[in-house]
């Protein structure tokens, strides 16, 4: 039971923190149309997070709610991978992070669709449609920036340099992932294949697979960034405890 709870929280935390980061763009995008696009992705991800949290809350009982899980757990209890908490920096880093993450979500949800757990299965099936679009949108941007101008090329290459080391963690199962029937080797193969094909089209080199990877997010050992995200996100719930909003 604990394993299922932790795994559900892992899925929820990933979606929430990624969605939260995307929502930081709202009002500041490079052009109105893309401001709207990235806010849509933020909304999709927060919607997914809510579904997972609601399910986790029923598993936990004890009056847990989606909000108590999102707003009253501290950094060490958050299980999202390091990738999603990385700062947005510029548009290149944002779309690349989205591409890495959405591609991961895409192949993960495909497998989850066949999970034994009816709830996870249903949430994944519904979310998969959204994620398909996120993969498409972010792939196109990676290609555009890679094969765009000299400036955009420089920036997307820099983004690869900075984010690549956070991708390895996606495929290193935490203890709560061991009984999920997720085939990690297959997941990683699919992910790699897609990354290679899009990078080829974008004329960007794929870093060596053997390069060093950071990990720890899945078990609560985060980068410093998450603390700031939570401080901001949880401020009202912490300052005015036991209130209805």
């Amino acid at each position, binding site marked *: 039971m604990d394993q299922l709870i932790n795994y559900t929280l892992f899925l929820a935390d990933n979606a929430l923190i990624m969605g939260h980061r995307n929502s930081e763009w709202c009002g500041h995008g490079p*052009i*109105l*149309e*893309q401001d709207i*696009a990235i806010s*849509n992705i933020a909304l999709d991800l927060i919607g997914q997070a809510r579904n997972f949290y609601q399910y986790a809350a029923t598993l936990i009982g004890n009056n847990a709610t989606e909000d108590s899980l999102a707003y009253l757990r501290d950094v060490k209890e958050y299980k999202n991978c390091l990738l999603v908490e990385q700062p947005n920096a510029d548009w290149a880093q944002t779309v690349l992070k989205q591409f890495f993450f959405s591609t991961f979500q895409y192949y993960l949800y495909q497998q989850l669709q066949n999970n034994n757990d009816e709830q996870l299965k249903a949430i994944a099936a519904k979310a998969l449609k959204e994620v398909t679009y996120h993969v*498409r949108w972010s792939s*196109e941007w990676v290609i555009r920036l890679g094969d765009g101008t000299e400036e955009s090329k420089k920036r997307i290459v820099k983004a690869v340099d900075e984010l690549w080391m956070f991708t390895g963690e996606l495929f290193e199962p935490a203890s709560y992932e061991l009984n999920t029937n997720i085939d990690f080797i297959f997941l990683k193969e699919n992910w790699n294949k897609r990354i290679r094909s899009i990078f080829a089209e974008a004329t960007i080199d794929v870093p060596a697979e053997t390069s060093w990877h950071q990990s720890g997010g899945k078990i609560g050992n985060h980068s410093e960034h998450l603390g700031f995200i939570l401080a901001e996100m949880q401020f009202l719930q912490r300052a005015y405890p036991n209130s209805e909003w």
Partner: protein
Amino acid sequence: MITIRKFYYGDYGESKLDSSSDNETSSSPSGVGGEWPLWEVFIRSKQGLDHKHAGSLHAADATMAIENARDVYTRRMEGISIWVVESKHIHASNPDDADALYDPANDKAYRHPTFYNLPDAVKHM
């Protein structure tokens, strides 16, 4: 003293910076040339209906225009199919020709079914 200015909702007057910015259509430094082209968006709201003009937007290419249209014009499930066309490819009739183009249709009532009187006994026609 408060100068009196034109003021409508959404209209707060404008500040004159210098005489050179006086001209409404003076070209901006960002330049029109750098702007993503304008596209017209047509949306089919339901299976079986026509595509209807929904509005316009900017996009770098057709793929992006369709995706932008999806994000901008179907946020509330308004559509199931999207057409986009670059605005510069739209050819419009000239309003000055309106009389010549459309008025003649005015007196062709025989094109409309109600023009014909049939006995009530005739059903389903």
